[in-house]
């Protein structure tokens, strides 16, 4: 059963998204929350890394944290799914373990 990986720090400031991408398997899910949501934006220096991840992993972003920082669905990369807290709970229930990359 696939795993859920959670990243909460901006990829422009920390290495935790990079570390997560390098140590998560194909078919797993990556959820961006808190300051990590800006990693989902179009046209950034990490957009290529995210696009590669989208090719073989499920990448999600917590919508309320995106809105909190002034962004909406229109501004994020195609292929990244927006979830609310209820969707966050579903992701945790649907995967067999959760790893937070702190």
């Amino acid at each position, binding site marked *: 059963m696939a795993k859920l990986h*959670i990243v*909460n*720090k901006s990829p422009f400031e920390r290495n935790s998204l990079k570390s997560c991408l390098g140590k998560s398997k194909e078919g797993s899910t990556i959820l961006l*929350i*808190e*300051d990590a949501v800006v990693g989902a934006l179009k046209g950034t220096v990490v957009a290529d890394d995210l696009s590669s991840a989208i090719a073989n992993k499920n990448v999600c972003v917590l919508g*309320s944290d995106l809105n909190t920082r002034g962004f909406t669905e229109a501004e994020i990369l195609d292929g990244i799914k927006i979830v*609310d*807290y*209820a969707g*966050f*709970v*579903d992701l*945790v*229930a649907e995967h067999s*373990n*959760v790893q*937070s990359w*702190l």
Partner: protein
Amino acid sequence: MNFTLLINEGPYQHQASDTAYQFAKAALEKGHEIYRVFFYNDGVNNATRLAIPPQDDRNITENWAALAKEHELDMVVCIAAAQRRGMLDADEAGRQGKDADNIHPAFRISGLGQLVEGGIQADRLLTFGD
């Protein structure tokens, strides 16, 4: 399904406790159970009953306390981490010869074994930190 939540950062300084609270609320609304909320590292600072946040801001400790009351949550503060940071309940303060205590009655103090047991007993353990 039931969840154990581990919170490693104090209130306000980091979003960790806010996120965990929103997650817990959503999980309970969907009919899941929270087996335990364990406060570790600076997370123990969430348990203070002395905080007076600005009136236009959230009161993180009272939010947790209200949720715990409504759903009978088991909210555990790690004793070793709490002692290091000056978080005491009345029993501890008495035992240690301290003249005051500051832990909100919605929380209880216990050992790290409660975290490991939470990981064993719950279907999922989630960490919220920095």
